[in-house]
């Protein structure tokens, strides 16, 4: 995707060339470094990742079972004041998301009030009738949320997407920091960066606080992975390891005596909280996809009997749909009584005939996304697409307009990456990770910054060749 014409926000430098406050400490330190040594560090980082096996799997590629996500060693930096503002907006959004989920599966006030069209969830594959009338332990639906943010100006952070199912990438947030601290220890003694390393501990604490009634004070937590060939397996193992939780596969679990239990060397032992990293569809072959071998037969019955916590709750996917996304400002207002602190990106719902007309007339300037698509697949990026591609997409759009939304191509902010010829700006986004429990909303300072590695490109997805950066939130 080519950058649009209008000026974009440079995270490091102001238009007059001066260094923005967030980067002053870093740029000062950088100016004292030897160029050759920095170039060597760049190689060091890759071998570090390769050695520790921090890889992700790419589907549909023969030769590349495991790949590295490129890491860039220039951090993305956010000031304490910026972060405070962002945190308030994120917390408000996550609270609204949970209230919304509860409402959708109970009284549906938002539908009755006419603020949200009923068909939006009636036609939504992620809607689970099994969840109707059921309240998860602690009333929490989205135990872990990833909110994708983009920035277009000094005070303009926009939400691009809510990831309410099983947001991934948090292991990169942690490993990026480890790598930076290993390579540049002295940098961290000169710049005051808020730590992220206690995320796994906070995750364990937050999950434990959501344990079902009757669970012991120290509930058994397990991470459910589809197995070593899943694209995010490394992350699953990493989180289980860091939390001191068991990493389980479906075949390790069984419903015994009305409880989900794991097969250990001393027999079956109960699991009280299951942080699942498999989709709803594969969770319970008795309730959902009968062909699935990844899940646990009968777990939904145990769940509905209130004897296990599943994180995130089944059926949360209904809230991170791109059609729902376009209603998020209304949803936030409806449940919090306040205006949304973090705005959405302008979005045209193609289901609406007037919007569709506009979108069809302006395809060359717009990004059109499938409502249920993810990871940058199934989308049209108008400005960089050929006439032929646009024509083909137009046909799809006309055939099934309900399935699409459109957004303007945004002037995403840039942050420099380290290249052979020095620093060079590239577009970035940011995914902070948010934990939710009856004890409160807990946002890790920072998150995962994804960066487009090609000059001018706006595509930051790791599955499409994007890279990542360490993300710093400065302390006051």
């Amino acid at each position, binding site marked *: 995707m080519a950058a649009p014409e209008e000026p974009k926000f440079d995270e490091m430098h102001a238009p007059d060339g001066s260094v923005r406050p967030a980067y002053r400490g870093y740029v000062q330190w950088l100016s004292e470094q030897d160029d050759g040594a920095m170039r060597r560090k760049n190689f060091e980082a890759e071998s570090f990742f390769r*050695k*520790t096996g921090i890889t992700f799997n790419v589907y549909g590629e023969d030769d590349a079972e495991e790949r590295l996500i490129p890491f860039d060693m220039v951090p993305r930096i956010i000031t304490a004041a910026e972060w405070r503002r962002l945190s308030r907006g994120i917390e408000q959004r996550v609270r609204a998301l949970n209230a919304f989920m509860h409402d959708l599966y109970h009284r549906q006030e938002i539908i009755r009030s006419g603020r949200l069209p009923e068909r939006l969830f009636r036609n939504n594959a992620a809607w689970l009738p099994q969840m109707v009338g059921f309240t998860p332990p602690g009333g929490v639906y989205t135990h872990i949320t990833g909110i994708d943010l983009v920035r277009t100006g000094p005070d303009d952070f926009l939400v691009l997407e809510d990831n309410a199912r099983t947001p991934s990438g948090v292991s990169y947030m942690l490993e990026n920091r480890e790598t930076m601290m290993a390579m540049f220890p002295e940098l961290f003694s000169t710049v005051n960066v808020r730590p992220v390393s206690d995320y796994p501990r906070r995750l364990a604490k937050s999950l434990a606080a959501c344990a079902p009634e009757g669970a012991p004070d120290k509930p058994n937590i397990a991470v459910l992975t589809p197995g*070593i060939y899943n694209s995010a397996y490394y992350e699953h193992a990493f989180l289980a390891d860091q939390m001191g939780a*068991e990493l389980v596969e479906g075949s*390790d679990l069984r419903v015994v005596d009305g409880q989900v239990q794991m097969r250990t*060397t001393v027999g079956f032992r109960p699991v009280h909280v299951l942080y699942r990293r498999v989709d709803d569809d594969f969770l319970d072959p008795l309730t959902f996809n009968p062909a699935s071998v990844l899940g646990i037969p009968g777990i939904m019955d145990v769940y509905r009997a209130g004897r296990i916590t599943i994180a995130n709750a089944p059926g949360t996917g209904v809230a991170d749909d791109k059609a729902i996304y376009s209603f998020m400002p209304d949803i936030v207002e409806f449940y919090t009584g306040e205006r949304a602190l973090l705005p959405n990106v302008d979005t045209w719902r193609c289901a609406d005939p007037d919007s569709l007309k506009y979108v069809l007339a302006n395809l060359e300037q717009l990004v059109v996304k499938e409502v249920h698509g993810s990871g940058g697949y199934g989308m049209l990026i108008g400005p960089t697409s050929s006439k032929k591609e646009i024509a083909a997409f137009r046909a799809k759009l006309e055939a099934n307009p309900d399935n699409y939304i459109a957004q303007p191509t945004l002037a995403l902010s840039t942050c420099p990456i380290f290249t052979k010829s020095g620093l060079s700006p590239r577009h970035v986004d940011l995914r902070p990770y948010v934990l939710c429990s009856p004890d409160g909303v807990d946002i890790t300072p920072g998150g995962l910054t994804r960066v487009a590695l090609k000059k001018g490109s706006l595509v930051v997805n790791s599955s499409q060749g994007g890279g990542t950066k360490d993300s710093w939130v400065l302390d006051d």
Partner: protein
Amino acid sequence: MLGRVANGIFWMYRYLERAENTARLLEAGHRMTLTRRSDTAVQEWRSVLTTLGLRRAYEATYDDYAGAHVCDFVLRSKNNPESVLSMVERARINARACRSAITLEVWEAINEGWMTLRDLLARPVRESNLNLALGAIRRESTLARGATHGSMLRNETYCFARLGTFLERADNTSRILDVKYYLLLPSLSYVGTPLDTGQWDNVLRSLSAERAYRWLNAGRMDARSIADFLILDKRFPRSLVFCYAAARENLTELARLHGAEGQAHECMRAADLRLNDKTVEDVFEQGLHEFLIQFIAGNQELAGAIATDYRFVS
């Protein structure tokens, strides 16, 4: 710990041990061929394949016993699921699947070892590089073992790791001994000939035992004293008695941790009866081959009982 993970750890260490022993055997075979005429070299290579249990698979691929072919088959052939490369890969797959049960040091040792050997074995190994490659295989296995010793908690994970190592090692030692004694010598009339003593030397080398043996048995090279050494010497880390002492220790610890004994402990006691307080005369009275066959079967039974007792599979 999860039964699946216990299984993964047990087999991860078996694969590592087997990869290492395979390299030792190949090293010994190669060395022997260097000191022989080419027609007997064929016999040596054939004996290496027989000991590894790969003769049939090899012959399905090749119709000669050229050293380069044998080495390629044993080290890296896609037609050989028991190749060193394949075992190192399987060890790494198990390590990934049990990633949260092993330390970062063990994981890195195995992951880096796999990367090194994958590159080293990406192409056929030339004879001039064979010792280098075999040395690398031994070294990577040693590093993984060292990381295990130096970084892992002495908990049940460690017990399963050690059980995997020692059951595999005991199996290897007994097979090597059996193949030499039972299969290799054309007839009894060859006992004591250079062919016979050469083969015994090969056996000792493939277990990295030749120096220790010579040091303890200066000038003697006969079935009786070698069997005594490889089966009954408590000091030699690849002897059956040594492996079983270590296995017993880890089984005892598992029983202590779990508060109960199982079928595996029964098997262990039966094995102890067969092994402990035995003299080499007792062994030969029973018949060395019969003794080894019984031992190998008991070893398999023990591994099976461990898998059942500790719920390796559902």
